């Protein structure tokens, strides 16, 4: 079933320790690091051809901007009491955008809860994400995406699912790939190791992407693991692992795209550690000032992935102020429209608690269903 060819990674250019603002592609103890743009949008290595053309760049920028504006609105809705607890993806939009733009329609995405950019690229609507955090299961019944898994809250528990789906794809001889995204904290969990190990031993068409935003709620990356990089965790599983600048959507798109291609062509899984920073609180229920220095956060804004791509496009003369303004207006209007649709969506009927529990409700539950319905009617 598999036709394995050895993976050839790009040769490293020099062996140096990680820097806070790396300007070159290098290796950390055998783990390659990839970056194309510096934080003012200038290439530090020869950019791929596609990254000098307008359409692919704008496609990435669009979904990042849409996600940024959606995020601002969602936090505002939560503050006004119109949304439940919400997990922001501020500063991490490039990862989702690169994933979404790298995947093919019939691949399957297994998101954690900061991958809105990937979900939007794959047909999930803003209204659906709002419904999810707004407490309505319809937010997981994606109308235009029938295969992707919904958001996964229990950390790392979705990673084995991706292995199962990847196995099913391989079993059926399909050229499809499962992509699983999770945070730095997730790499400390057994579920992650079990799935990573199995993906290696079963040669599964599976791409693992770590959104390393440096913080697992209050626990920093430094404390999470003594491992020099989280990508090193691939070594024990015998699969390729690499670090990518998680604020550099071009490097991300390039490396994630290649990992997908390898998986699709039967060359097995890859672990990609995307290095970014959580510019937001963990969720709207969190106050990050309790455990991290606001100076640190302020300093990280220079790496804003949207600014970096926008500057790159401007340097190439592919993006005007007018286009920026127009796109902002367009997405602000879309966000408003989605918000209205969310706020106007009625709650699920009381009966729905029972009606999707099994394909056919067992007789033993009929009485409880009736009782819930009666109570629902009494409560108006």
């Amino acid at each position, binding site marked *: 079933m598999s036709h394995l060819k050895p993976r050839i990674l790009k040769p490293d250019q020099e062996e140096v320790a990680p820097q806070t603002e790396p300007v070159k592609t290098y290796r950390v103890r055998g783990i390659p690091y990839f970056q194309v743009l510096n934080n003012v949008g200038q290439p530090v290595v020869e950019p791929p051809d596609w990254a000098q053309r307008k359409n692919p760049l704008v496609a990435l920028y669009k979904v990042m901007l849409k996600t940024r504006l959606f995020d601002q609105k969602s936090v505002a809705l939560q503050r006004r009491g119109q949304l439940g607890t919400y997990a922001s993806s501020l500063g991490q939009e490039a990862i989702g955008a690169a994933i979404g733009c790298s995947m093919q329609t019939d691949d399957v995405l297994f998101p954690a809860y900061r991958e809105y950019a990937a979900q939007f690229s794959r047909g999930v609507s803003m209204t659906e994400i709002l419904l999810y955090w707004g407490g309505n*299961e319809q937010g*997981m019944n994606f109308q235009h995406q029938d295969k992707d898994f919904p958001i996964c809250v229990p950390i790392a528990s979705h990673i*084995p699912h991706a292995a199962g789906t990847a196995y099913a794809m391989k079993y059926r001889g399909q050229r499809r790939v499962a992509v699983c995204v999770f945070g730095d904290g997730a790499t400390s969990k*057994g579920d992650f190791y079990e*799935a990573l190990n199995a993906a290696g031993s079963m040669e599964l068409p599976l791409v693992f992407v770590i959104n390393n935003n440096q913080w697992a709620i209050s626990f920093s990356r430094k404390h999470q693991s003594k491992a020099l990089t989280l990508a090193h965790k691939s070594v024990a599983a015998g699969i390729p692992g690499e670090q990518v600048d998680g604020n550099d959507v071009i490097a991300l798109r390039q490396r994630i795209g290649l990992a997908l291609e390898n998986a699709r062509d039967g060359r097995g899984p890859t672990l990609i550690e995307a290095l970014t920073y959580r510019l937001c609180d963990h969720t709207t229920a969190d106050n990050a000032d309790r455990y991290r220095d606001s100076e640190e956060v302020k300093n990280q804004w220079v790496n804003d992935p949207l600014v970096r791509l926008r500057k790159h496009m401007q340097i190439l003369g592919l993006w005007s102020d007018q286009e920026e303004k127009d796109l902002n207006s367009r997405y602000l209007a879309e966000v408003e429209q989605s918000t209205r649709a969310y706020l106007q969506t009625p709650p699920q009927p009381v009966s729905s608690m029972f009606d*999707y529990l099994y394909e056919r409700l067992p007789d033993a539950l009929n009485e409880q269903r009736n009782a819930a319905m009666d109570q629902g009617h009494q409560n108006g």
Partner: protein
Amino acid sequence: MSNEMQRWIKVTKMAKTTLVDAINLALAYEMAADPDVVLLGEDIGVNGGVFRATDGLQKTFGSQRVIDTPLSETLIAGMAIGMAAERLKPVAEIQFMGFIYSVIDQIINHATRLRNRTRGRLSCPMVLRAPFGSGIHAPEHHSESTEALFAHIPGLRVVIPSSPGRGYGLLLAAIRDPDPVIFLEPKRIYRLHKQDIEDNGQALPLDTCFLLREGQDVTLVSWGAMIHETIIAAEQLAAMGMQSEVIDVATLKPLDMQTILDSVAKTGRCVIIHEAARTCGIGAEIAAQLAEQGLMSLFAPVERVTGFDTVMPLFQLEKEYMPNVDRIVAAAKRTLEN
């Protein structure tokens, strides 16, 4: 379909089959009939499972369908969920119930919720098999009966066969069921009885109790390996002139309470027998529902004959832990004193 697979289907009459062989037959039948059925677990392939439940299946159906996994229970359950969402029908094996507890996360947080949280967009037709229970002098952690943990989980089916015939028919039903099923196999009776089984692919109904013996004096309710002691107790009671009705619950969740209520309406007495610890066991649920819906039928308090609320002892004391025929007979007689 390969000739070898067709031969599996053609073999329709298997004389004198044990429970573990019946499990094997059901798996083979359904794998031959449905290419979406895959098996996964530890040592289930080349080795045929530590109890030989999957013996020969990898040879017949290949290592892509009878998958020896790394030693990772969470992975096994999690992979089954990912496979099921892709419309495969995974039958996953956890080698012993003592190793199933890390899997509860996958069951509660994912397998049983997937249909509900996606409003039916995705579903999880998977079976998780595990041998369980005491009585074979197994090492520590190999003898517990913790089925009640699973019966508490919404969206799940918990099924326990008590004979080769029900093992065959209920496992087929479990594999064909569109929702997740925990299928617990009482290992003490894997090779205790032999029955003639028609290997005809005929499933038995889930969500229903089986009436094994009719009687008008007392209702004995049990499941799994304890059915064996319960039937001996019923015979001893019959020799003393007391006729017992014996009910094999078989599907513990959802619970077919009606069959039990109908029986108790006739007998007025009920003894519930299970190997599992007493507190919050399934016996407690059955007794509670009898109190709610069948109190007026009862001539005597409901009796429970169960394992103790203790840690399962190592095997030198396992017989002291397990309910036995004498305890069942004594409990039945107590109900008949009223």
